[in-house]
């Protein structure tokens, strides 16, 4: 079957309990968390092609994962803060928590 292309880099949305954000805030609220996901294959350069080859041929040892990227990254280019009320009925705002816009960068 035709291998469908991976979806391009875009914003995805998830409703998450504040407690599950893993930041230690104590609240019963559920907040929208938007993140960037998707392929950046379409805008690779000669550099990326060469790097991918050298990684595959083990000419370059990647080191800890994520430290050598052979394609632009799908990352937020704009963020949003998220506010919620904690169990002490105090408003809290977490800056730069959610992605407002995603692009392939680098």
């Amino acid at each position, binding site marked *: 079957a035709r291998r469908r292309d991976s979806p391009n880099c875009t914003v995805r949305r998830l409703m998450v309990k504040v407690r599950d954000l893993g930041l230690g805030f104590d609240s019963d609220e559920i907040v929208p968390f938007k993140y960037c996901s998707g392929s950046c294959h379409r805008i690779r350069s000669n550099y990326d092609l060469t790097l991918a080859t050298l990684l595959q041929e083990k000419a370059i040892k990647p080191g800890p994962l*994520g430290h050598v990227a*052979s394609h632009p990254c799908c990352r937020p280019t704009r963020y949003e803060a998220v506010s919620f009320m904690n169990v002490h009925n105090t408003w809290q705002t977490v800056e730069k928590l959610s992605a407002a816009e995603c692009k392939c960068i680098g």
Partner: protein
Amino acid sequence: MDLSFHIKENKPPGTFHQLQLPPIHHLCQNVSISYKLLAVEGLPFRYNENTTGVSVVQRLDREERERYELIAKCTVREGSKEMQVEVPFLVNVLDEDDSAPFLPNGTSTTDAVVEFNRKEGTVLATLTVCDADTTPIFPIESSRKKYTGTISTTDPWISETFRVDHIFHEIYFSPNGSQVRGTLHEYKLMLNKNISVTENRSFQLDVLVNDTEFHGPERSVMLHFNVSILPVSIQFPNVTYQFTVNRNAQRFAHIGKICIENCMKFCGVNITYRLLSPNASCYAVGILQGREDKFGSLYVNDSSVLLRPECKEIQYTVVASDKQSKKHAKTQLTITLEGTIIKKEEDCPECCAVNKHRAECEECGGVGVLTGKCQWRQGSGKGITTNYSTCTPSIRTCPDGTCDVIESKDPSVCPQDCTNGNIIGGHERGAHGIKSGHGICYCFPRQNCYCEKDDIKEPPCDDMC
């Protein structure tokens, strides 16, 4: 609809309202309308059935009673039918400045002692004056000017050195069971400038309080402050200072504090501390003082000296001096070096706070360490707490929520307390640095600090995509 009236106190008796008889009363023979004023027994109000006029029968005194709640009753008769309506009839008494100031508990004298707190703006003592009249709080300045409080003296030094602050607020009197508003005026004797530690004098300072709008007798009251300015001495307690310092301590290690006698009580007195070292070759220790600190902080200034075997015991003379009076005091400080020198671990970050785990923390040294190694502070691990886990040069001073004078000298000493960079993760920011954090807080000096749970691994993001 309420019937509400305002009558100025002290005015002569007279009619102040006419209850109206509607035209129907005159046109229709079989209809009659009549009024009555209820709840007037014992009160200075009358209703005249013939003239339907309501009058006040004597001068009102607001300081006796400022509000009367009467009832107006209207009766309408048509043949055998009768209908009655009652509505509140309120009389508010407006105030006039007709009361002289008086002393609430008869005290016009108090003591005002100046000892350690010699700072401009210090309140030395307070005396109060009452007035049965009310005082509007808007505009406040004009009310304040109405009741003056001036230091009566011919001595320029007193006028320069003291000032009187006047505040007032509403209080309640209950002359005969009803509540009546009055005013309590407070006169605070304050220092108008810092006083030298050598100043030593006693005298009585008088303040004339004057109710400028009251035209009767005794419109003013004299307040008396018995002022005693005690001299204070700049001296060290009769002990010499002894500190031991580990030879593996690093630069900016916090050794201890130096303080003259009663130093924490002093206010408005600028004491500065200096070290004089006869033994110039072993000059390892320095002293620093924060702008608001009343003590000197000793710290390791040159850690290479600690490694020199010939430097065992270092003697200093500590000098504390007061800028204003040029007074100064001296004492002896002995620094004893101890401990065997341990090899410095390779590959260690310069700053303890960079280490995220106990093992790498306790294996490494860093700026400000006392014994050559960083210390791991294990937190409670619950939510966002001041007791977060972190790696520090000295648990005793860092993190403690204060960016002290030594920590502020170098961003690598205690970024947890001093950072003004980004703090990422669950946290609460203090005046400086991290007030509370989630899990483990670690910092890259001059960059970000992070507070996160330790169990979050680096998700796979392989590059063979």
